[in-house]
């Protein structure tokens, strides 16, 4: 008895092909990256540590090999300003801004893997944290350098030099 059954989600017409409009397949050869270097900067070291754990976990899940994770030393920018509005030059205030760094280097990626990983990792960047990405491309050696120049020049006959 199909009186109360709702046919809202059922596939009545399965003639439509299931293509995701966000996924595109192209035949061009993919750009290969030797190294993908992510430099993450922040004020708070605990936030950077947790973000490192998250990024390394995401890379492992996607099967990307992590070359190394290292923490460059922090940079402190110090300012010495006058404490008072008008005079009192001898009384100053000192402020400092600390920037902690964390560098994540990934090995041997394709451009689509890199795009997916970067999109995921950048959408989940915590507030107050900045990231710089450097990609090292692998390219084929151009044709005019592939053979050494001295092999391609026409052979010159040696002339004796009379001293």
């Amino acid at each position, binding site marked *: 008895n199909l009186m109360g059954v709702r046919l809202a989600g059922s596939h009545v017409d399965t003639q439509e092909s299931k293509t995701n409009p966000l996924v595109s397949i192209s035949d061009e050869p993919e750009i290969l990256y030797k190294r993908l270097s992510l430099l993450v*900067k922040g*004020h708070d070291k605990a936030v950077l540590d947790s973000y490192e754990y998250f990024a390394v976990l995401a890379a492992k899940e996607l099967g990307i090999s992590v070359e190394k994770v290292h923490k460059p030393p922090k940079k402190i*920018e110090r300012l010495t300003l006058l404490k008072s509005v008008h005079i009192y030059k001898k009384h100053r205030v000192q402020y400092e*801004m600390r920037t902690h760094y964390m560098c994540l280097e990934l090995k041997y990626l394709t451009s689509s893997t890199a795009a997916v990983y970067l999109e995921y990792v950048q*959408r989940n960047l915590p*507030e*107050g944290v*900045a990231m710089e990405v450097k990609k090292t491309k692998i390219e084929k050696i151009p044709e005019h350098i592939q053979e050494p120049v001295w092999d391609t020049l026409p052979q010159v006959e040696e002339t004796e030099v009379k001293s």
Partner: protein
Amino acid sequence: PPSPQTRAARVRVGKGDKPVTYEQAHAPHYIAHRKGWLSLHTGNLAEEPGAAERAVEDAFLRRFFYGTFPGILADEIVLKRRANLLVVCLVLARGLPPSKLYFLVGYAETLLSHFYKCPVRLELQTVPAKVVYKYL
């Protein structure tokens, strides 16, 4: 250690009848040790632009919210900037009926998103009364 004559962002000890929140009770040298940051953005990091613009926006937003929720703000507002999205986290005391609060939230969100040309999201929390950390 700072000298006892510094007066920056410190509430001076009094008779013992002044209620003080956790934020107000701690001096600025406790930031990153016992306190967190009230506004999180990348302007103050090394070699990053936009510190002054963010500071001006922060000052404007604090005055704006001090005015739209008169007498109800329980603590300083927390601003978070995630890639063009501005998230404002407020803690309010229960002084207004919820229908009026919803109107104020919608008004603030639409006005600020049109003014700053970026999506603005408000995250509210109501609290029965101001959370007192100690009495000074």
